[in-house]
C-alpha cells in the first residue's frame, strides 16, 4: 500500500538542514532519557538478583520499612517525570521545528 520509492516530497525534506538538526537533537534527547530509565531499572534488577540484602536494609534503626520501597517508588515517579521532560521538548521546540519543515516542504 505504501513505499513510494524516493518521492520528491521526502527528497525535499532530506535536503532541508533543519530536518537533520531536528533528527539529531530529538534523537539525542530520546536516547539520553531512555538510557537513564534503562540503566536505572537494570541496575535495580541486578541488585534484586545479586545483592538483595541491600534492599532489605531498614530506612533507619527503628524503622520497619526497608530502603527498597522508597527506591522502587522513586523509579516509578522519576521515570514518569522523564516522560514529562520529553513531552515538554518534543511538543514544544521540536514540534515547532517539525511544523516549520512541513511548511517549507509543502509550499
Amino acid at each position, binding site marked *: 500500500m505504501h513505499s513510494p520509492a524516493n518521492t520528491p516530497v521526502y527528497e525535499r525534506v532530506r535536503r532541508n538542514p533543519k530536518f537533520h538538526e531536528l533528527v539529531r537533537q530529538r534523537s539525542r534527547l530520546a536516547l539520553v532519557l531512555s538510557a537513564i530509565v534503562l540503566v536505572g531499572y537494570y541496575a535495580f534488577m541486578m541488585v*534484586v538478583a545479586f545483592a538483595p540484602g541491600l534492599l*532489605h536494609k531498614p530506612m533507619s534503626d527503628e524503622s*520497619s520499612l526497608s530502603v527498597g520501597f522508597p527506591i522502587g517508588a522513586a523509579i516509578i515517579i522519576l521515570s514518569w517525570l522523564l516522560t514529562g521532560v520529553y513531552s515538554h521538548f518534543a511538543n514544544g521546540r521540536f514540534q515547532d521545528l517539525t511544523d516549520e519543515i512541513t511548511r517549507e516542504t509543502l509550499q
Partner: protein
Amino acid sequence: MIARRILVAASAAILAAALSAVPALAAGDVGQLEKQPINLSAIGMFIAFVVMTLGITYWAASRTRSTSDFYTAGGGITGFQNGLAIAGDYMSAATLLGLSSLVFAKGYDGFVYTISFFVGWPIILFLLAERLRNLGHFTFADIASYRLDQGKIRTFAAIGSLTVVCFYLIVQMVGAGQLIKLLFGLDYNVAVIVVGVLMVVYVTFGGMIATTWVQIIKAVLLLGGGILLAFLALSRFGFSLEAIARSAIASHKDGVKIMGPGTLLADPVSAVSLSLGLLFGTAALPHIMMRFFTVPNAREARKSVFYASGFIGFFFLIVCVLGMAAITIVGTDPQFFEGGKVGGKLIGGGNMPVMHLAKALGGDLFLGFLSAVAFATILAVVSGLALAGASAIAHDLYARVIRKGEATEREEMRVSKIASLVLGVLAVVLGIAFEKQNVAFLVGLTFGVAASVNFPVLILSMYWKGLTTRGALAGGIAGLISAVTLVILSNAVWVVVLNNPAPIFPYEQPALFSMTLAFIVTIVVSKLDSSASARAEREAFEDQFVRSQTGIGAAAAAKH
C-alpha cells in the same frame, strides 16, 4: 439501522439473562464454600454499568460508518482521553487483582513485579510513540509491512498479534471467572460466557468509539475506587506507611523477609527474563499500539503517553499500598479464609485479597462497587483485545493479504464483526481451559511472546535500514516458535495444564532467550539477503524515516 436494532435486541436479551439469573442464584448450591451469598448492591452497580456502556455502544454504533471509525474512532480522540484509555487498557484485572495479590503473598517481590510492569512506558514514549503515530494506519502490521513484502510480513505480523491477543484474553477471562464466582455466586463457566457475550456486543456494534469510551469510564471508576480504598486502608493505620509495614511484618508468615527481594525473583536469569518480557512486551501489545492510531497527530500521541504513565504509575503505587495493607487486614481475619483457618486457602482463590480488603474496610456496598468496577475492567480490556484481534484478521489478513486491497469497506467491516464473534467464542473456551492459573504469571507469559514476536520486527523496521522481508520473517518465526515452545515447556502449561511431573524449561519467562534469538536471526538473515527486493526495501527506508520523524504523508490517515 439494522445493526442498531440488533443491538437493542441483544442488550435486552443480556439484561433479561442477567436478571433471570438472580432467582436461580438464590437457590445457590450451599455445598461449595467458594461461592458467596448474593450481593444485591454489587449486581445493581454492575447492571448500571452494563446499561450505561450499552447506551454508549448504541450511540457509537450510529457514528461507526467507515473502517477508520471502526478501528481507530476516526482518529478523533484527544491526548488526554487517549491517555485515560491507555491507562484503562493497562490497569486490567491482572494488575488490580494479580499485582495486589502478589504483594499480599510475597511482599517486596510483588513490588518489583509492579515496577517491571511500569518502566516500559517511558521507553515507549522515547522510542516509539511518535513513530507509531506517524507510520501507522490501523494496525501494527501497517508499520511492520510499510516497506517490506505486504503479503508475507503482514500475514506474519497479524499472526503475532493474534497469538498475543489470545494469551491475554485467557488472563482476562480467568480474572472474570474468579471474580464473578466470588461476587455473584455464579458458576465460573457462566461468568466467562457473560464476559464473552458482552465483549462481542461492544466491539461488533460500537467499534473503537465504544471500546474507547468504555475504557475511559472504567479507568475513572477504577482510579476513584482505588484511591478511596487506599484512603480507607491508610486511615486504619493512622495514615502511616511505617505502621502498615510494621503490622505487615508482624502478620505475614515470612516476617521481615517481605521487606526485600525474596524467592520469587531469586534466580537472576528469571529476573532479567521477566523484566525484558515486561519492558519490551508492553511496547508490542497490539491493543496498546492500536491506541496510538486513534489520536490525530504525534503531538497528541506524546501527550497520551505522559498522561497514561502518570495514571498508571500512580495506580500501581496505590495497588502496592493495598497489597501491603491487606497482609494485616485480610491476612489475619478468619472470615476471609476457607473454614475460617487463618493462613489457609483464601476464599475465592489467591487473586482475591484486594476484594476482601474492600469488604473489610467498606462493607458489602464497597465490595459491590469494587467488584462491579473490576468486572467492568475486564469487559473493557477484553473489548480492546477483541478489537485488536478483529483488525488483525479483517484489515491485515482479509482486506490486505487475501483480497489484496480490493475489498470494499462494507466487506471489511463485515469480516471484522465476524472475527470479533469468533474471538469471543475462542476467549470463552480458552478461559474455561485455563481456570486454575495465577493470572499475573499468565500476563508475564503474554508479554514474553509480545516481546519476542512483535517487538523485534517493530523496532527494527523503524530503526534499522538493513531490515529485509526474509530477515524479519525468519527472526519473527524463530521468536514465535521459541517463545510459544518455552511457554508450553514451562511450569504454567507443562505441569499445571498438561499434568506432567516437572517443567522442561525451568523459568517462567521466555523473553531473555526467545527475544534474543529473534533479534539475532533477524539481523543475520537480513545481512545475508542480497536479493533485488532486499535492495529496494533498504532504499525505501529513507522515505519511511522522513515520514516517521515528521508525519508528512501521515496526516491523511487522521482526517475523517
